[in-house]
């Protein structure tokens, strides 16, 4: 029935999001739709709504284009979705913990975890590259640019 399910879902999802923007988010977080502040968000949202509906209609009639084979450099075995989710999780934890455990410990932990996710099993290169990167970043930002990297509230408390 629907020729291109992905595009259909994307089009409908965008349209629903735009309606939510027009009905709730813009009036509540910008201002009434007829005011100057809301002009651009309203115009753009209306445009996305139109394009989203167009995409959904197009997806009903037109099948998805077939992939013409992978590119030359991407012919290896791809990672599974949970590996990608794990990398995102590590990055999120990295971002959130930076303030608490500081640049050194968070970066070291995150890099070791990332190396393991990417399938590096030898500890010597893991530690050498991680410490080398951290040293380089510290030298570049803290020493050369005078832009101190976060020490971390936990580390600060411990040092005090």
């Amino acid at each position, binding site marked *: 029935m629907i020729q291109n399910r992905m595009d259909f879902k994307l089009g409908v999802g965008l349209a629903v999001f735009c309606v939510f923007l027009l009905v709730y988010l813009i009036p509540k977080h910008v201002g009434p739709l007829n005011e100057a*502040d809301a*002009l651009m*968000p309203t115009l753009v*949202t209306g445009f996305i709504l139109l394009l989203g509906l167009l995409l959904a209609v197009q997806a009903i009639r037109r099948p998805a284009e077939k992939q013409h084979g*992978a590119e030359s450099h*991407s012919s290896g075995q*791809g990672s599974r979705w949970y590996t990608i989710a794990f990398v995102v999780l590590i990055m999120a934890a990295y971002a959130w913990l930076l303030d608490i455990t500081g640049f050194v410990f968070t970066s070291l932990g995150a890099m070791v975890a990332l190396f393991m996710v*990417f399938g590096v099993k030898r500890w010597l290169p893991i530690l050498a590259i991680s410490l080398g990167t951290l040293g380089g970043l510290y030298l570049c*930002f803290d020493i050369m640019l005078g*832009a101190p990297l976060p020490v971390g509230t936990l580390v600060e408390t411990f040092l005090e």
Partner: protein
Amino acid sequence: MLETLAVAASQALTLTNFFGAALGIFLGSLLGAIPGLNGTMAIALLIPVTYTWSPLFAIAMLVGCWKGSVYGGSISAVLLNAPGTPEAAATALDGYPLTKQGKAGKALKMALYASVIGAIFSDGLLMVASPPIAALALMFGPAELAMLILFALVVVADTGAKSQLKGLISTALGMLLATVGLDPITTQQRFTFGSIDLDAGIGLLAMLIGLLVMSEVLVQMEEGWREAHAEAMVKSDDPNASRVTWPELKGCLGTIFRSSILGSFCGALPGVGSITAAFMGYDQARRLSKHPERFGKGELQGVAAPEAANNAVCGAGLIPLVTLGIPGALSAAVIMGAFMIHGLAPGPMLMVEHPETIYGLFMLLILSDFFMLIIPLPLMKLGQWVVAVPRAYLFPVILALCVIGAFGTHQNLFDVKVMVFFGVVGYLMKKWELSPAALLIAFILGPMAEVYLRQALKISGGDPSIFVTKPLAALFLALALGAIVWTLLRNRRSKKTA
């Protein structure tokens, strides 16, 4: 004018700035040579480091990095048939067969000479064409500028998207994201959800790193990659196998100049880009050659043409940026971000307000082209090891650079969270065949478009007919609408023929 040039020369032609340009070329060549990294990623990762430096030094380094990465991409294309950057794919067509014949050195040197000639031609054009275009653009009012940006946005919507419709959706999403933060005219909070961190809007650099770098790592993880292996190079007994002789260079000069013109033309037009330029250059070289049958089998002109064309895109790509404030390609958009971070607002006023900086930058660009003749030479020797860095070792380092780069500019942890968020957004966009590049360009141009649009409406007392009664505004509006219709028709026709 002469006085301005003298001041510009005194500011630009210093040892520190030479070092900046040279460093940019070295880093660009190195990072561009590694498959999986590209020039845009390299520039995005380098911007945070330049934050405290002088604008001239920083921008000369970043543009040097752009040029270096375009050439660097050809190293892995020639040596491994694995283009380090997408625009180097055309170079691999004849570069790799030359490597198999034991002439890798010859191919790399020809690529280098062609790149340098293309870059000099395009930088010369930038220097000559920018002042009159900027002077012309100064005559534009808010209505004309609003419609010009609209036209540019429609044209760049094609950048990286699977279809024009999805490109337009990506562009509109970028425009919507640009409205987050304080209103540029009334300073009313918009979509800040009570967060002080969002008052200044979404951090450009954090978004840029997330969309272009982190998302790319996630995409490459999903697609999988084949590690490049440093195979033993084929040795040739020919003493000229690793150098380009004068007759060979002379034989390619016509091709190089034609490709430089083509590349400059592609660079100056928003949305065309270096990949198209490289393939157009290759195609014209083959069609005009006396021996088209040699192409694809190790023809030197097949290496020279795409390299001259894709390097000629860089300088010319800055013409719409410095004169109209419109980035014609993704790398130019990232460079535009660097301009803005360093307090230089690209657009017609840039040449009026900072003429010394701009002319100084032009001088450094031309000078950096000559550096390109020397700096990448060691990489040619080390090329086969450089290009074979395993991505399992590379990606954790890149991800750590993303986090610290996003934090480093404003010392703000919120920016790191924004970077991770947009890393995921960029990955999902690529999965859904939307274009993070178009979103980013629209995000950069969005605030300008809004200010001009509202100024024009204020002038006309809220009457939108100002956009059709002013001849130039009407022309740009017609061009934008025409571009939409033309692309939709082209898509329809190509699908029918497919």
